[in-house]
């Protein structure tokens, strides 16, 4: 409503302006325009009939006043959303008008697959997010902008690093697979691999097809839901619009992890008997008595992001255009310039009616990006690790060693030899980055890996569609659409020999580069027929599509102790190879896939009361996914809706002022998940010359070939059967909107790698042998109204999710996901439990002897648990997600507060290790020692304790993602300088985080893989951001 109001106000503005012009022979006319409920209608235009240059617009109170020519006979009152009325003047000076709502208009249309549908006719569960919800967010990622905006849609960020994309999960997780969990993503009809390239400002709407019936039109690809994105298109208007938006973002570390400071660390370590007292440490020179390094502050400073969007749009009754250029330059909050993301995206949307029966158009996006990211998600000091270091290095180590004497003996040796680089700050020649002398372990000074990082990626992507619509007869539209993606990517890396400690060093240079180019096209032809007769409305759609993709890459690498002709900046390329290094090559073989599909839909509705819809899709996939005998799949769905509020018994008895709209709907359907299949998983071939032995005295190889597994030609995709029951309600003249959905989704035929018995001699083979159930409730509640000039709205959504593995091949028993160090705490996939739950020992408090107690399998207390006592500790998947958006506006000022949260799940910060007892850990373990957990001397070497629920934390959080205050300058000022609209705003994004989680960011806590959700192995946290922006249009 609020939005509708703004729109009306804008469109009626012209009328207002001309109203100021007055004629010589005029007389005053005034009145009030109200709706059927007597509420004032603001922004309605009141025009003298036949003389559109004379008119006025109603104010916020519905009142209008204008001078009409003396001879004027009638006025026309119109406003978008209402049925226009022409009223004879009949010499009156005051005319009050009551406008009837135009139901047709109030019904937003919603994009569904291969067509659109009126929202009131929807029989499935479709969440729709409009452009207004996506405006002016600090994120440059369309998926991230969806967070908290739609019930039943979860957004996971494994990383907050610049340029990292978020992943979308619709209605839980219904696969054990590591990939293929996300929904099918369709942008303007084009299937895309991510939507991370799309700046939210280019999006008109995002529709999430959640239930099986809605998604079924995408068949075997829709098992995890479908997200349909429509980019903006030009609006029909007399004159076009030029717009420019700028955002400046400043990012800083938001939620800090709580790690021990120097005094706490020493105290804790001393209690364990691992370290002397502070005095002893000072006496022996291990500690200077002063240093208390906060490693997070060492790495993270302030990042700066610039985001410019410039474009133009417009249209008339024949065509429209939307052109936009978006440039993002993000330098993340890690100090220095090693976490950067730059992206330029051009969006070109246009359509034109060439003939009355023939329309052509295109939606094309051209993207250029460059990215450099720090290594994350690893507990080991490999070449890419680094971020976990901010948690685990002891605070006694200073950031820099300022003289040679301070270096560890290993570093001194490296400096002496001069072959391995010992990193130091460029701004302080003669200094070096420190390493902990207390523990030569995986906790590495994060600045070293930051400076070492020369891994770069850049690429071009062109994604788009071209279409033609034929309208040979009324109500029939035949569309032929070609979609294409052309992707070119180049990544390179340069590593030099370096030395930090015995676990983090290299003696060789390593130079590599990979170039890849992919293309994809889809050709779709479909026809839509919609016809109304009497009270009947019928619709039919039928079509087919063919898709093909080709990807190929070539990579090369060079390693060696001295492989290049030179090592200056401009020599660090493969071409400078001096012939002495070891060369590696990769790639060269194209990877192709193809798909043929037929699909259709029938809709029928009677008298706006009963709606029925049926979808059907048949999909066939290429031989890299399925065997020929199993390549076809058929996906039917049906859904129905009953708009009770349009029944006469309802209309006659219930006031529209109380319940304006009530519909119940239900759907059932089948979807598939094909994305888990790739690489000929069903077949057994001979891995030709893949093995070798040297029978002779020299290193001549004899090559051997063997089968690569056991064939399973019956292998098929994962299939979901989903039932959805929903209710849509609008009350109090549409001020209150309420939506409710219950769903039950059973997914079967999960791909499971089973191990035949050991004696078969084959380690594993893939079968369809697992099932998952997801069920949940989704609520959406909105209220919007205004009090005089003050408009406000609250929109909230909440969804619950119960996720459970309902079957897993008994011979598999369980699948182990991710673990940490030598601990028995792992994520597990097992029948009867949520996917990838945390499994470990259940901590039972402190025993009388001060040691940790655990619950044994039989419920008794034990201090030496055995493997049989390992049990379900908690789910890593939030059972509750919610979002609240509050908008207020008053005379050009607008305030948006948006928060989102998740609850009822658990996280394990991967910090302390019994293998490396001297690493730092969370303050929690210090503060709780002797209270809720044993003192450190009782647990420092107890892997059982660190494998127990005592190391697990509630991951629930609520984040205020956005507090944005904006001011739109009055048009009467801006118009004078030809500016159509000018808005300034400031925003605090991700500023307030409410959580008990002691690590950095409960949202990004992950190993970076879907099986490792919940194990926090050091990810780049989401920053808090301060945003300043301006939106200007001409």
């Amino acid at each position, binding site marked *: 409503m609020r939005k509708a109001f703004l729109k009306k106000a804008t469109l009626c503005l012209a009328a207002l302006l001309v109203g100021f012009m007055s004629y010589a022979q005029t007389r005053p006319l005034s009145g009030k325009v109200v709706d059927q409920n007597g509420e004032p209608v603001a922004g309605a235009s009141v025009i003298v009939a036949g003389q559109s240059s004379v008119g006025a617009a109603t104010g916020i109170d519905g009142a209008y006043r204008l001078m009409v020519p003396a001879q004027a006979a009638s006025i026309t009152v119109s406003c978008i959303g209402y049925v226009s009325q022409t009223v004879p003047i009949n010499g009156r000076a005051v005319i009050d008008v009551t406008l009837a709502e135009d139901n047709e208009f109030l019904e937003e249309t919603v994009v569904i697959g291969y067509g659109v549908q009126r929202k009131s006719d929807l029989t499935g569960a479709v969440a729709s997010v409009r452009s207004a919800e996506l405006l002016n967010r600090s994120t440059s990622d369309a998926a991230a902008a969806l967070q908290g905006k739609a019930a039943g849609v979860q957004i996971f960020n494994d990383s907050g690093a610049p340029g990292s994309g978020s992943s979308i999960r619709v209605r839980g997780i219904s696969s054990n697979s590591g990939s293929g969990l996300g929904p099918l993503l369709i942008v303007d009809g084009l299937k895309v691999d991510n939507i991370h390239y799309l700046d939210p400002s280019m999006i008109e709407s995002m529709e999430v097809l959640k239930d099986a019936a809605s998604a079924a039109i995408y068949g075997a690809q829709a098992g995890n839901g479908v997200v349909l994105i429509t980019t903006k298109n030009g609006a029909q208007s007399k004159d076009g619009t030029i717009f420019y938006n700028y955002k400046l973002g400043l990012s800083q570390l938001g939620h800090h992890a709580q790690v021990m400071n120097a005094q706490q660390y020493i105290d804790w370590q001393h209690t364990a008997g691992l370290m002397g007292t502070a005095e002893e440490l000072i006496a022996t020179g291990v500690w200077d008595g002063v240093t208390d390094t906060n490693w997070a502050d060492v790495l993270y400073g302030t990042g700066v992001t610039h985001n410019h969007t410039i474009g133009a749009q417009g249209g008339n009754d024949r065509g429209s255009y939307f052109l936009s250029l978006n440039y993002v330059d993000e330098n993340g909050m890690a100090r220095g310039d090693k976490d950067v993301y730059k992206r330029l995206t051009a969006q070109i949307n246009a359509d034109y009616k060439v003939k009355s*029966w023939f329309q052509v158009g295109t939606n094309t996006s051209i993207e250029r990006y460059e990215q450099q990211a720090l290594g994350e998600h690893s507990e080991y000091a490999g070449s890419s690790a680094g971020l976990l270091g901010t948690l685990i290095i002891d605070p006694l180590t200073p950031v820099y060693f300022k003289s040679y004497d301070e270096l560890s003996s290993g570093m001194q040796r490296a400096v002496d030899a001069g072959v391995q680089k010992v990193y130091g700050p460029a701004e302080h020649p003669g200094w070096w980055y420190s390493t902990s002398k207390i523990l030569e372990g995986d906790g590495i000074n994060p600045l070293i890996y930051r400076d070492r990082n020369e891994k770069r990626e850049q690429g071009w992507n062109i994604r788009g569609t071209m279409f033609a619509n034929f309208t040979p007869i009324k109500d029939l539209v035949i569309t032929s659409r070609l979609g294409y993606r052309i992707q070119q990517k180049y990544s390179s890396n340069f590593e030099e020999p370096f030395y930090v400690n015995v676990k983090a060093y290299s003696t060789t240079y390593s130079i590599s580069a990979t170039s890849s180019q992919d293309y994809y096209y889809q050709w779709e032809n479909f026809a839509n027929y919609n016809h109304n007769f009497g009270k009947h409305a019928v619709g039919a759609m039928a079509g087919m599509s063919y898709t093909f993709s080709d990807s190929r890459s070539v990579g090369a690498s060079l390693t060696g102790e001295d492989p290049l002709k030179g090592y200056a900046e401009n020599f660090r390329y493969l071409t400078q190879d001096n012939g002495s290094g070891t060369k590696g090559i990769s790639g060269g*073989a194209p990877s192709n896939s193809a798909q043929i599909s037929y699909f259709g839909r029938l809709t029928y509705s009677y008298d706006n009361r009963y709606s029925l819809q049926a979808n059907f899709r048949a999909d066939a996939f290429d031989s890299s996914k399925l065997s020929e005998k199993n390549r076809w799949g058929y996906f039917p769905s049906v859904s129905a809706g009953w708009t009770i509020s349009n029944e006469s018994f309802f209309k006659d008895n219930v006031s529209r002022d109380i319940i304006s709209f009530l519909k119940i709907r239900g759907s059932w359907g089948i979807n598939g998940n094909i994305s888990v299949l790739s690489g000929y998983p069903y077949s057994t071939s001979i891995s*030709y010359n893949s093995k070798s032995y*040297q029978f002779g*005295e020299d290193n001549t190889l004899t090559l051997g070939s063997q089968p690569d597994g056991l064939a399973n030609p019956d292998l098929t995709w994962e299939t979901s059967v989903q039932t959805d029951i929903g209710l849509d309600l609008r009350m109090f003249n549409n001020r209150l909107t309420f939506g409710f959905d219950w769903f039950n989704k059973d997914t079967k035929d999960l791909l499971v790698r089973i191990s035949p018995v050991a004696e078969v*001699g084959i380690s594993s083979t893939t079968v369809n042998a697992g099932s998952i159930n997801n069920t949940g409730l989704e609520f959406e509640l909105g209220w919007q109204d205004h009090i005089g000039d003050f408009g406000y709205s609250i929109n909230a959504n909440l969804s619950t999710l119960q996720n459970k593995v309902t079957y897993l091949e008994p011979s598999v028993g369980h699948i182990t996901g991710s673990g940490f160090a030598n601990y028995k705490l792992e994520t597990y996939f097992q029948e009867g439990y949520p996917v990838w739950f945390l499994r470990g020992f259940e901590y039972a408090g402190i025993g009388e002897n001060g040691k940790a107690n655990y619950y044994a399998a039989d419920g008794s207390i034990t201090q030496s648990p055995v493997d049989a006592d390992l049990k379900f500790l908690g789910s890593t998947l939030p059972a509750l997600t919610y979002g609240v958006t509050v908008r207020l506006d008053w005379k050009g000022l607008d305030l948006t507060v948006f928060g989102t949260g998740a609850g009822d799940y658990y996280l394990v910060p991967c910090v302390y290790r019994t293998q490396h007892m001297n690493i730092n850990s969370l303050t929690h373990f210090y503060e709780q020692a002797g209270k809720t957990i044993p003192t450190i001397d009782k647990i420092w070497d107890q892997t059982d304790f660190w494998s127990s629920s005592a190391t697990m934390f509630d991951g629930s959080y609520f984040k205020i993602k956005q507090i944005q205050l904006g001011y739109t300058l009055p048009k009467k000022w801006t118009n004078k300088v030809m500016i159509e609209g000018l808005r300034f705003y400031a925003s605090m994004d991700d500023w307030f985080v409410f959580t008990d989680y002691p690590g950095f960011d409960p949202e990004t806590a992950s190993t970076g893989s879907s099986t490792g959700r919940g194990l926090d192995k050091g990810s780049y946290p989401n920053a808090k951001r301060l945003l300043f922006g301006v939106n200007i249009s001409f």
Partner: protein
Amino acid sequence: MKKNILSAIICSVALLGLTACNQDLLNIPQKGVIAYEDFYQTDDDALSALTTVYDSFITVVSSGNNGINNPSFNVVINAPGDEMYWGGGKKNGSSSGGQDMNEFRNTYDNTIPHIKYVYKQMYTLIYKCNLVIDNFWGENGELCDSQTKKRCVAEARVVRAWAHFFLASYWGTPPLVDHVLAGDARPTNCDHQVLMDWIISEFKAALPDLEARKGPNDKPGAYKITSGNCLAFLGKAQVFNKDWEGAKNSLKQVITSGNYALVPQSEIKDLFHVAGDGNSEKVFELNYVYNEGLGRTGGKYHYQRNNALFFRMLKIYPDILIKEEGWGNNCAPTKQFVDAMMAHEPNSARRKAWFSTYEEMLTEYSYTNFKGKNYDVKSDGTPLTREEKLMDANRGLDFNKYDELYANYGYFFMKFMPWACDLIPNSSTITEENRTVMRYPEVLLLYAEACAMTNDPDGLQYLNMVAERAGAPTYSALTLDNVKQEKWFELAWEGTRFLDLVRWGDAPTALHFKANDPTPYLDDEFYVDGSNGKKKSGKPHKAWVKWVDDGWAASGGGYVVGKHELYPFPFDVIELNPWDPETGVGLKQNPGWD
């Protein structure tokens, strides 16, 4: 207008039709593979399939559950014997169960990863053999139409029988798998005697189609299955089967073939290094040659301490060894073994090649070029004397890594230590010495044992041949005890001892010490006790052993007669295929391991 409509409809239908029908668009051939049906045809295919057997054999013996730390094969064949302590730096080192097995701790159970790994890998090896045999032999040789195929099948049969012999020895009644099994197979235990008889018949059946080694200098003849090593395996199986006459017959054929000979005393130290690869006393070994083309993922090399009998606790290392890096297992010879050998042959070439004393380690090796520095000379260039070396603070145990060394009696393995000369080019960690499966002295000593059991004096010469070559005292009589002692010394840590102890009934007494006696912790008198190497005592370097009762016996550990003779079937294996007495399907656990 009508025309337009018509043409538009025709166009659309044509468009639909164009892409609608052709399902060939979906046939995308897989790259880099050939179809199963097209393979297993020619002689070349047979050789190719056989190659995977050897490849798999390498996987069995040199990789492991815990990869670079603990090659499982070494743990399984050595840990329960009486020759070594499984160190690991500290008493609960990350040994994936090696220490638990070694000390018969109460934590030694059916989930030990090493046992599982070797069991599974052994059946993978059998599967590779069966692919050759099923596809080129068939049921009765009907698929075998060439001499090459015959030989390939014969070699695969020997490896398959060897693997079954290994399984039968350690697990008693493992399933007999003589063909490729289907994915849903549920194999069951095979009676031990039935299995032994089958193994022996298989060795015999394969013999006629095998090539012989071409003389003692035929190195490639040691890298593959020949009639010689088939006979040696056969003889060993016959000894285990107490078929003494059969064993004598088989083993004597190996001895008289002239294709094998002991290397001279001076070459003992080279036996397990590149210099000794394929030498005259190698009956069968797996050939490791680093291949540039395969890179470092091809598996034909050892990574650092891949033979597990390694130590990593010195400040600096003798030149002869590969460079100090990473972690170590710090396995060490037991007091029982050291004392016995030091009493019998304290200065023999064999003893010095097998292990060093702490003092020898510090004084008898050169430390001249370690990391570019000469530790054997003073600053003025004059060499350090023995006494000065013993007072040299650069040398000795490194207390930055360990406060004291768990389970070390002051002696250090040398037998299997990777040497700098074993390194592949341009690497400081990767070596390419071969992995020996059977050595000629074992043949001689098995023959001697069979003779001793049948009072046949012919065996004495071979017993003394081994002792003499070692530089050890010879024996005047052929007794079983003499054979036992000589075999203990000669084949130490080569994986024969535990099976012998069980076979001879000596295990309960010989292994009694393991959980029951205190454990030696090694320190150095050079430092003040308890100073973690921070304060010097003023005394020279000297091994200083402290005996600590770690309480394994008190916590229920120790060798259990009737249980520990055999390994458990791994927990996972039994869980997947549990014994069902109703149907007789599934696998029965070994006694005492349920």
